[in-house]
């Protein structure tokens, strides 16, 4: 039901062919950096797609912007910061660590810690019960 459900609407966004030949930077090292950064950026009008995976015009604009910054000599951080400044945190597929995302980031540790605590107390109780 779940995956299937997805498709009817996604269909509107298909075919999902993202990067066009005319966008690719001549320098393969710069292009590789652009690709990696593109995976971190959300196509703002798409359902959970990175700009690398989307063929929406906005995603293309963002890809071109990103490449402009990289060609201009920006570091990865500077290029991302430049885009975040204009489009907000929502554009980041990996949310920055701040107060409101604190729980999101520590959730795995919390789960692991709570689980470990339960397991340890279980063993301790067991040992007390053992002769």
């Amino acid at each position: 039901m779940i995956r299937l459900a997805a498709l009817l609407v996604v269909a509107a966004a298909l075919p999902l062919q993202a990067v066009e030949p005319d966008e690719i930077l001549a320098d393969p090292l710069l292009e590789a950096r652009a690709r990696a950064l593109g995976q971190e950026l959300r196509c703002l009008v798409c359902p959970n797609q990175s700009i690398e995976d989307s063929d929406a015009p906005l995603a293309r604009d963002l890809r071109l912007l990103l490449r402009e910054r990289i060609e201009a000599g920006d570091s990865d951080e500077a290029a991302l910061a430049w885009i975040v400044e204009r489009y907000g945190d929502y554009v980041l597929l990996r949310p920055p660590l701040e107060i409101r995302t604190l729980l999101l980031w520590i959730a795995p540790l919390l789960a692991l810690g709570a689980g470990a605590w339960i397991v340890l107390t279980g063993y301790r109780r067991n040992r007390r019960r053992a002769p």
Partner: protein
Amino acid sequence: MISETGHFALALALCIALVQGTLPLVGAARGHAGLMRLSQSAALAQAAMVTVAFAALTAGYVRSDFSLLNVVENSHSLKPLLYKVTGVWGNHEGSLLLWVLILALHGLAVALLNRGLPLATRARVLAVQGLIAAGFLAFSLFTSNPFARLDPPPADGLDLNPILQDPGLAFHPPFLYLGYVGLSVTFAFAVAALIDGRIDALWARWARPFTLASWIFLTIGIALGSWWAYYELGWGGWWFWDPVENASFMPWLAATALLHSTIVTEKRGALKSWTVLLAILAFSLSLLGTFLVRSGVLTSVHAFANDPERGVFILLLMIVATGGALALYAVRAPKLRPDGLFAPLSREGTLVLNNLFLAAGCFTVLTGTLYPLILDVLDEGSVSVGPPYYELVFVPLMIPLLLLVAFGMLSPWKKSDLAGVLSRLKPLLAISAVAWGLVWWRATDTSPLPAFGIALATWIAGAVVLNHAERVKAFRSPPRDTWRRMRRLPSAAYGMSLAHLGVAVFVAGVTASSAWQSEVIRTMEPGDSQEIAGYTITFEGAATVPGPNYEAERGTFRVAAGERHVAVLEPERRAYFVQPTLTTEAAIHTTWMADIYVVLGEAAGDGRRVVRLYHNPLVPWIWAGTLLMAAGGLASLAGRRPGRGTAPAAAPS
């Protein structure tokens, strides 16, 4: 007339489910055998009625009965017969009917199998199933009736979304449902045990086959979905951490944990309370997934039923089922007899750690999926939680889990033997370390991480082989003795080896495909050639070819390795007649060690084409691995009947 029969049968099924969900419970509480037996006849009757309803809707689709609203909205007379049938569940109403059908068939299985199940337990299990069925039947009848008529009927239908007209996707939903709904049986067993106040090895032996079966179906269902994404979406990705994918992945993680904890409950009478809780949570996560998708609360536009009324209904169902079961658990779980004893580094101990990491992983996925929703509700602005988040937090949780596999397989039950295990693992550690170094050097990567993935796969596969060899005393006793032991080994042992071998193959596939993919995106003229990963791919042109309900542009590509001809690949772009949708059909040549993956892009004038070429190493191993896991589950299932354990020979080594 057929449709009215189906509609009536559905209504009747609801009445039967209500009886099935109440009277047997009263019977079990008062020790009234007649009322308890009623559960069986009710389950049979309910299954019969839902089958009639499903058959009626299928008939509507096959005969293209456009007086049915559901058929009009999702079918077309030109559609191939296969997709007319699979179109039955290619929409909200029909998929819900399939859900109810599978639920009823599971009830039938409980009623017919399990002859040795105590009458009261069976009555309770079937009653809980009946209550769940009643909820979903009411949902279907009152908010999503598949038999609504349309007057006057239109001349033809609106067609099924072309994306769904695909073999991979046609069978993806039924498998997922079999998995989701199968977890309802385990859930029912858990609730029955809580009412009963008793859980023992016998209980685990009855519940485990159903968990195993659902896990197999979930595994295949998820694999089918990701395989579809791989060949259809057109850039070689296969998992996107989309909320909708997460919705199916969370029950899988919970079911995997449950499988492992049930073993401990069955063999050692321990972890009872946790196993029951997991059984409740696993099904609750299935319901949560359903709610997330059906209600349309996700920022994902994945939901096709963006209907608040439906969302509220499922939310209520979830609150009643999960809340009720958890309340029962809170009251009853402390009364369960305390667990058996075992040492922290025994086989059971490693299985506890397995559950710890799987549960933490599941919780992480849950947090990532719900977090944007929660922030939104709290008016804290929007965040996106995408693949980079999961890669950073989920993957590190899985690495210790995968390392643990070897320890778990080689540890004895009940007592710790760390020194013994470590000394047996030493050669394996050496082999894995060599694999790590060798792959790192050969791949000339800057990061040692991809090579570590391969080492991890080697580690797991090595442990499987080592464990299996030890159990049949390979090379340590005469070949005839080894052969005898191999035949005597219970199929569950083969199941375990196969499934974990599948994990190793899967890990290798995931690692290689994500680290060492080659890609070329360019414009090609007919006659142009392009090198990729040692292959030469020549574009020979594109032509228009007709399909049954679409028109395709088909490109022809010749693949050669040096002078040797390898394959002709024909990717397509299809334009469907009724719904103005383009789909891409990638053409894939697989050598099992890698896929050559070709996508035909837009026309660029003068017969030139945008073309995407990929070389995806070890990608087939991802699905081979999942298939092995499912096969392992099947082998394990084959060795047992509900209520009977494995043969005495299964005594753990």
